[in-house]
């Protein structure tokens, strides 16, 4: 069941003419974890704040569990949305104890608030004395309190702003897994923002890629990796080779030779041909195949990376089996199993 829908959400900030978020639409399924991934300035945090009700969009709708919460100039204020949020700096109330922090959001919750707060703190795995104050805790413990505080009132959607950015690399893997477990166990729908694709790949069920305010693609990780809709998305996950092709009726002329392809006739201008290192297959010599001069081979145990150069010295990488032997200055022939075409103006 869809719990949250964004429809053509657009937001500009008065200072710049550029869109912070431009016509972004997507749905979020109940219980899933969605990652919003993008560089800084891609609009990912703005999207989070729009959903929370901390900002108001210039245009578009937001629907939360069947109710429009944003339309035109009208808006359900943040305190009535029942949305939880974990801020990047945690934003714990410094003058309240851990327990008071968690109880703060339970004011309108029925039942034994103290018990709910304590249970939630146990759920996030905090073993400290609950009467301590936030400044007495480590960064990681503070994050758990922030998480407990956000999920204790049982929000419809949980938002997390860069939840892994303040952790050191050693801890990251462990924390990612733990936070995923906590969210899944509490059953809450979660949206988190990150600039690190590894965070997204390891924690999220689905990933939305944002670039300069535009939603590029939203899907499960496998699809994003294997069938990226555009070069930006493709580049986000792993290395992408890029060569220039000049279209003819039958195919493309490239610095690495002629490549037969029916789609060539659809292009007037030069194109960029993009492919991943593992999507190029090294073949025996053949005049129909692409080829380049061997530049360097790097051995990685379970695979090798072969670097080829064209006449101008431009290089591409190909991933191949570890047992293939190469000689210096060999001419290496290859075909492309999968690639993307993009007009190069």
């Amino acid at each position: 069941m869809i719990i949250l829908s964004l429809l053509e959400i657009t937001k500009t900030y008065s200072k710049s003419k550029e869109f912070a978020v431009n016509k972004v639409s997507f749905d979020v399924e109940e219980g899933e974890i969605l990652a919003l991934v993008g560089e800084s300035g891609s609009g990912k945090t703005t999207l989070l704040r729009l959903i929370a009700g901390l900002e108001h969009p210039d245009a578009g709708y937001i629907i939360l569990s069947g109710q429009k919460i944003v339309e035109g100039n009208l808006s359900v204020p943040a305190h009535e949305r029942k949305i939880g949020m974990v801020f990047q700096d945690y934003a714990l109330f410094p003058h309240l104890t851990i327990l008071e922090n968690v109880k703060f959001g339970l004011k309108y919750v029925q039942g034994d608030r103290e018990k709910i707060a304590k249970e939630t703190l146990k759920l996030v795995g905090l073993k400290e004395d609950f009467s301590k104050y936030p400044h007495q805790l480590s960064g990681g413990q503070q994050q758990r309190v922030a998480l407990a505080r956000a999920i204790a009132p049982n929000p419809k959607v949980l938002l997390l702003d860069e939840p892994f950015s303040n952790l050191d690399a050693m801890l990251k893997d462990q924390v990612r897994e733990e936070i995923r477990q906590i969210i899944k166990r509490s059953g809450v729908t979660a949206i988190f923002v990150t600039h690190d694709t590894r965070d997204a790949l390891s924690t999220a069920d689905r990933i939305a890629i944002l670039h300069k305010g535009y939603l590029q693609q939203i899907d499960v990780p496998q699809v994003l990796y294997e069938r990226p809709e555009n070069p930006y998305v493709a580049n986000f996950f792993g290395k992408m080779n890029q060569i220039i092709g000049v279209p003819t009726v039958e195919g493309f002329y490239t610095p690495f030779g002629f490549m037969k392809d029916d789609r060539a006739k659809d292009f007037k201008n030069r194109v960029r041909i993009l492919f991943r290192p593992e999507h190029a297959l090294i073949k025996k010599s053949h005049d129909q195949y692409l080829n380049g001069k061997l530049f360097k081979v790097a051995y990685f145990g379970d695979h090798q990376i072969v670097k080829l150069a064209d006449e101008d010295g431009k290089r591409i990488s190909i991933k191949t089996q570890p047992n293939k032997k190469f000689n210096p200055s060999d001419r290496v022939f290859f075909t492309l199993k999968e690639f993307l075409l993009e007009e190069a103006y």
Partner: protein
Amino acid sequence: MELVKRNYYWWNRWAGFALLILLAVVTPIGTILFKLFEKPGSSWSHIVDNLLFGYFQNTLLLLIGVALVTFLLGVSTAWLVSNYNFPGRKYFEWLLILPLGFPGYIMAYTYVGILDYTGPIQGFLRNTLGISVRGSLIDIMNLPGAIFILSITLFPYVFLISRTSFLQQSKTLQEAASLLGSNRLNTFIKVALPLARPAIVAGIALASMEVLNDYGTVKYFGVNTFTTGIFRAWFSMGDASTAIYLAGILMVFVFVILYIESLQRGNKRYSFNASSHKPTARVNVSSGKKALYFSICATLFAVSFFIPFLQILYWVSMTYHKVANADFLMLIYRSFSLAAISGILVVLFSVVLLYALRLSPFNWVKNVTKIATLGYAVPGAVIAVGIMIPFLAFDKWVFSTFFPNYNPGLIFSGTLFALGFAYVVRFMAVGYNPVDAGFQKIGIHVNEASRLLGTRSSRTLWKIDLPLIKTGLFTGILLVFVDVLKELPLTLILRPFNYHTLATKAFDMATNEMIAESANAALVIILTGIIPIIFLNKMIKNREV
């Protein structure tokens, strides 16, 4: 689909309250600007012919003189205490701020007393050395005297702000300069001074605002400036529109100073690399220089605070049995409660303005709320006139509309309400800035987190924001309290008939040849003024650490 009709996203009650406060605060200045387009009063031509040039000349000379002297006194001592080790340096850092607690008008008549025929200096000369001087030893009741008095009370503004700037300059910059063969003095002139320039000019601008605001000193010394002109037009000639014209010209001075200040600052916001942000190491100098630096600071402190303070204490010891009675206690009580209420109101309004800004989705609101703090740049006499006129008009309208046969009296004009309102307008910035700093320090996220947890904005303010900015609130109230206690020109114009505050009482007695008796009220004002100075200096110190 069901549309959940809710609030307009840009509207909340805070915005409404903020708008009301803004409107009230802007009214006095707006009135002055508006009335400038009306015909001048009957005495205007007389003023233009006989007095205007003198007002202009005196005001300008006073400004230039005070700017120069405060620059010399403030920057030199700031450089000494931030760069050299010498005996007492640590104490001079805050002793040299104390003169700020001395209102100019009190300093003025204290110095007249010191130099007087019956004063300690002449007494000493006469009784011990047998030298007799006729009249005053040095006549300071003139323009240079006014420059002297205002400079020794206002130089701490320049001292304080340039000291902070010198301390912020990184050690590496000065080390680089000395490695390039520059000596200490050369480094000061070529590196430290240009870097501190924006701060120094800001300090001088602050001092200049106080000069334009001053009434007591120039009045007592018989130096005619725009402020005394406004009083003369208002009280002696009873000519409101002439007072407005003079107020309007005075405002031009203010705008020019503000403009120069912002112009020279420009985009130059010298930033100091955080990693090289080590405090400047203080240099040990020869004992001769140590003695010299000590005596420079000690002399300035003696002249600007210690000697006049002793004089006040002496006067108090002579007269307290005459003055310290129930009436005097009542005077203290009334002044303190007026100042406290003003402080609380200013901080309350600041919280509303800043909270509206905090919740507002629009950036430009920031600039609008800033307007509320303009009052600090506007001389008290101008604000007083700007408040008196709409209040008088309102009273008149009420009586002519509702009680046509009734003897027109006062509703708002000449009441404590008008006076308190004027204090709020004048000292809004004083309370606004610490509250603003408090809000900025805690950031917006705790507020947002609270609202996302289902707490409405008013409860969030009460439960989260206010407890976290307690220090800022307290600082704001304290600063406004002290400023109100010292305030003279505005109080003189707006106070109810025969109503006295400590400041007006002190001034009244001093101008009526009861200088020694006036010292009692003065002492209370000075002692109260010193508290926040010490308190604030501690806060700045803590931030440095």
